[in-house]
């Protein structure tokens, strides 16, 4: 052991002496040459590093590429497209978080969603229904939106935007209505002059007053009456339009204008068939959802193009436009929508291409005539928000005209023309808000059908003239106005989550058959008995509580 230590020490001493001798033998010129060489190598390396950095556009964002560092709330952004080399980041400027940082630039992908699940208690006041409880998923959805910034390509202020959105049937069994793209889905170009988009979207008419309803998607939703043609779940003027193209202006001094067009693109001249591209349902019906016609309910002949079964509200070309104004506490809206050639032969049974067609007569001897005619709606309204000492108080109101342009002889059967009015108030108190709303449907000129008495004879057909009816009665002989009242409160945990409680009552004349929860709630509470007979004039009552979460 000692010998090994001595030999090692001697070897180290020799090496040190040899190295020192070599150092002493070098001149200062040698040192300078070596330093020059090192400097050149250093410059070459620096140049290579610069070239490598320039070849990686997303390098600036790589600091955020570690998914473990991404917190992901409230929204997850990610870039997925490459682009020309971005300018170097400004010192001190934060880099946007992204789990997919290495491939970032100019395309921001946003995952978003909305959940609204409620527990309901309702009673339609129908003889064989009673009070029931239910769990509903209310217009819950999930979506992906991508925005591709065109500024680096010379289009400053312009973007390509695309969106895919699907309904989430969190409570009910999913159907085609929960397919990807079942809700607002489109691709478009946005810029300083506005946006042009194509695909499917809520109409400008629908969106113009959406914020006025504090009970949207609950059993107190204003679509029980507003935008609703004829009652039931027919919120045909609160619609998501398929195969559409639309323009949205930028907001200029508080004004924003939007307009949409949807070609009917129907196989049949009276719009009684599927639209081109829609092989599952009639135009004017949502997938297994709301609207006047959908498979299995007097609408399309299932899977059969050429069946001419779209006779319960199918329409051709449609146009919708809205002008919104917001300036501080003031809001104002004006909107208009037109459905061309709305086929209502399902009421008069005169769609001759359908087997078994033929005239229908009411108990008073009149033949039902409904035909194919244009329908339109218009509305104007406004809102004001101010602080009343307790907190902000938001007031909203609007008036609506819905019309079906029929001939005089068809007026006694026209349940599509009426006025409506809506008003709501919401008092904000800290994280709480208390709301109340009122909607009223004025009387229509007529009705093409019979409604059932609220008794065990509801299935008995309309009586003949001179005989006292026991099961059904001629609806156009009775008042069909209706009023809906709703009150509720909401607690907002924050901007993303809330809890609500809502109560609603719908009172209607004997000729009316509106529903609670139309167009938005997971299901509708209608005045129907177990055999699906429509009970006229029922009073509908519901209470609901739910939790919402947006991300």
């Amino acid at each position, binding site marked *: 052991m000692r010998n090994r230590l001595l030999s090692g020490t001697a070897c180290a001493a020799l090496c040190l002496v040899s190295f020192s001798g070599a150092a002493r033998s070098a001149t200062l010129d040698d040192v300078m040459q070596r330093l020059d060489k090192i*400097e050149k190598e250093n410059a070459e390396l620096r140049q290579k590093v610069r070239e490598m950095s320039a070849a990686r556009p997303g390098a600036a964002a790589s600091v955020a590429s570690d998914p473990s560092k991404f917190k992901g709330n409230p929204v997850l952004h990610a870039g997925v497209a490459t682009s020309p080399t971005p300018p170097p980041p400004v010192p001190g400027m934060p880099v946007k978080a992204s789990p997919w940082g290495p491939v970032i630039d100019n395309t921001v992908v*946003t995952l978003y969603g*909305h959940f609204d699940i409620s527990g309901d208690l309702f009673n339609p006041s129908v003889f064989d229904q009673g009070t029931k409880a239910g769990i509903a998923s209310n217009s819950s959805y999930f979506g992906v939106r991508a925005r591709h910034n065109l*500024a680096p390509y010379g289009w400053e*202020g312009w973007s390509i935007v695309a969106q895919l959105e699907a309904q989430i049937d969190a409570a009910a069994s999913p159907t085609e209505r929960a397919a990807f793209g079942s809700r607002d889905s489109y691709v478009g170009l*946005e810029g300083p002059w506005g946006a042009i988009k194509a695909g499917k979207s809520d109409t400008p008419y629908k969106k113009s007053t959406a914020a006025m309803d504090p009970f949207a998607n609950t059993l107190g939703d204003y679509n029980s009456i507003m935008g609703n043609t004829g009652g039931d779940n027919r919120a045909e003027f609160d619609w998501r339009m398929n195969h559409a193209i639309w323009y949205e202006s930028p907001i200029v001094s508080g004004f924003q204008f939007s307009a949409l067009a949807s070609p009917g693109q129907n196989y049949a001249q009276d719009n009684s068939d599927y639209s081109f591209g829609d092989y599952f349902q009639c135009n004017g019906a949502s997938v297994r959802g709301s609207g006047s016609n959908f498979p299995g309910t007097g609408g399309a002949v299932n899977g059969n193009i050429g069946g001419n079964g779209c006779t319960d509200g199918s329409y051709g070309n449609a146009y919708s436009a809205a002008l919104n104004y917001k300036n501080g506490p003031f809001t104002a809206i004006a909107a208009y929508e037109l459905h061309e050639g709305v086929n209502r032969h399902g009421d008069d049974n005169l769609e001759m291409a359908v087997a078994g067609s033929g005239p229908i007569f009411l108990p008073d001897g009149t033949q039902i005539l409904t035909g194919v005619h244009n329908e339109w709606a218009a509305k104007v309204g406004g809102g004001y928000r101010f602080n009343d000492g307790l907190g902000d108080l938001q007031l909203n109101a609007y008036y609506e005209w819905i019309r079906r342009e029929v001939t005089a002889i068809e007026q006694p059967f026209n349940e599509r023309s009426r006025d409506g009015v809506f008003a709501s108030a919401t008092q904000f108190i800290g994280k709480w808000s208390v709301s109340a709303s009122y909607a009223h449907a004025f009387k229509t000129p007529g009705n093409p059908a019979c409604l059932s008495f609220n008794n065990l004879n509801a299935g008995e057909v309309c009586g003949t003239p001179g005989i006292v009816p026991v099961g059904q009665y001629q609806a156009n002989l009775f008042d069909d106005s209706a009023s809906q009242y709703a009150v509720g409160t909401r607690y907002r945990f924050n901007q993303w989550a809330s809890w609500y409680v809502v109560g609603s009552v719908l009172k209607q004349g004997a000729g009316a058959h509106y529903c609670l929860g139309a167009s938005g709630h997971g299901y509708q509470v209608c005045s129907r008995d177990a055999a699906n007979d429509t009970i006229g004039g029922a009073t509908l009552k519901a209470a609901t509580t739910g939790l919402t979460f947006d991300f």
Partner: protein
Amino acid sequence: MIDLQPPPALVQMAQSEVQPEAPPEPVPVKVDVTQYVPDSATSVTMIVTVSPPTGTAVVYAPGYENYATIFKGPRSMEEVRLTGPFVYVKLYGAQSFEIQYTNYRQP
């Protein structure tokens, strides 16, 4: 004669290793978006123009500075998530900015 001055290359390299002093953090500018955008909006799409055009604007909702949206100059369009009526704007390398609201989203 031998010049005993230190090699200039070494001096230059030593200087390049020194980190530049970090610029002062810009003061955020508070902007009320509800002048033209509904109070219930959850996000707003906007075009931000900055001057000089080489600058950048960073826009974020209160409490969400780490999730800011970056608007590169001279003009670019992006979507900003909202948590209330206000957003903050920080300018990097820019002296002024201008916002044009193009659209908004509601739940």
